[in-house]
């Protein structure tokens, strides 16, 4: 890859990487994994840089990040193990406060629901764009959004999420 292309790639990566990191963090739940996933996405975009437009590169990178996050959560050693004993709440936690912050609550959702919510509400993608990124139908995006929001609201036990059911076209 020539210097011009490296320059264009660098400019694109500087513009895009922080948003991708945010997406990856919300999907994976920790910054180290998120950085690994973003690095992998950037490598894949770099390999195809001569074949794709910068606008498509962002969409492609987002797809790699989302797919990698979904895939990681499907690996057997990443799955949750049922436990007979629930962990104690941290000492000093207020009884009437939310049980989860948004990252912990997202981690409790099925991977696809989590990806749908992050792409729609963090990346501000429309239903159709979210469907394209994840390779699912717009109907699945809508139902995953609705179910995901219900579950988030339940987990966070806070009225701040009330009224999030309205679908953006």
């Amino acid at each position, binding site marked *: 890859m020539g210097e011009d292309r490296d320059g264009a790639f660098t400019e694109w990566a500087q513009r895009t990487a922080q948003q991708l990191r945010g997406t990856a963090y*919300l999907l994976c739940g920790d910054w180290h994994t998120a950085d690994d996933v973003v690095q992998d996405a950037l*490598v894949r975009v770099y390999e195809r840089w001569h074949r794709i437009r910068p606008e498509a590169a962002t969409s492609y990178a987002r797809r790699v990040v989302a797919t990698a996050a979904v895939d990681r959560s499907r690996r057997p050693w990443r799955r949750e193990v049922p436990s007979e004993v629930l962990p104690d709440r941290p000492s000093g936690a207020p009884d009437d406060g939310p049980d989860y912050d948004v990252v912990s609550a997202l981690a409790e959702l099925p991977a696809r629901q989590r990806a749908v919510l992050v792409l729609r509400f*963090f990346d501000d993608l429309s239903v159709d764009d979210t469907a394209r990124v994840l390779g699912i*139908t717009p109907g699945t995006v809508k139902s995953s959004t609705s179910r995901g929001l219900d579950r988030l609201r339940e987990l966070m036990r806070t009225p701040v999420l009330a009224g999030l059911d309205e679908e953006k076209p």
Partner: protein
Amino acid sequence: MSDNDLRTLMRDAVGDAPAREFSTPVIASAARARTRRRRAWYGVAGIGAAASVAAAVAVGGGLLGGPALAPVAQPTAAASSPAPDPGAIGLPTSLPVGETVAVVDAELPAGTTVGELAMDAAWTPAGTIELPLATSSGAAKLSIAVTASGCSADSAALGGASLDAIASAVCAAASQYPNPPGTVVDGGSIDPAA
């Protein structure tokens, strides 16, 4: 309350991100390393295929009356494999479907994605899998085969270059596991990860 509440929560959550720079030379180096790994895998696969052919020829020669080969000592089952722990959770021993989808997805041309998988999507014991594709012109199928002789991909919706890239990437990913995709383990059940 509006959608903006969740947006704000998410933005706040990533607001205190630790600093991290992604340098283009490092990314370029990682891309080159990835290419080298793929080429190395092709080399290993080629040697494996050649060894298989040589072994087949040797066995065939023996059957046809050629010089007898000295028997080769075989390790006993007890020596080679410890007793399985029935309570253990096994790591995948062959390429999982989820990783296959990620690998394929990354090699698809812009505008084409892997479609929604069927609930029973899995590698067959023969080392093949069929994935749905969503393209701008509609749905399509992608067939992938990983065998001892190499990897192949076939789809009416994709060009030769994309199919070659997919086959290469799947081969490289499959080589990271001890068994070929779809390997039967535990006396007849398909590897749950595959």
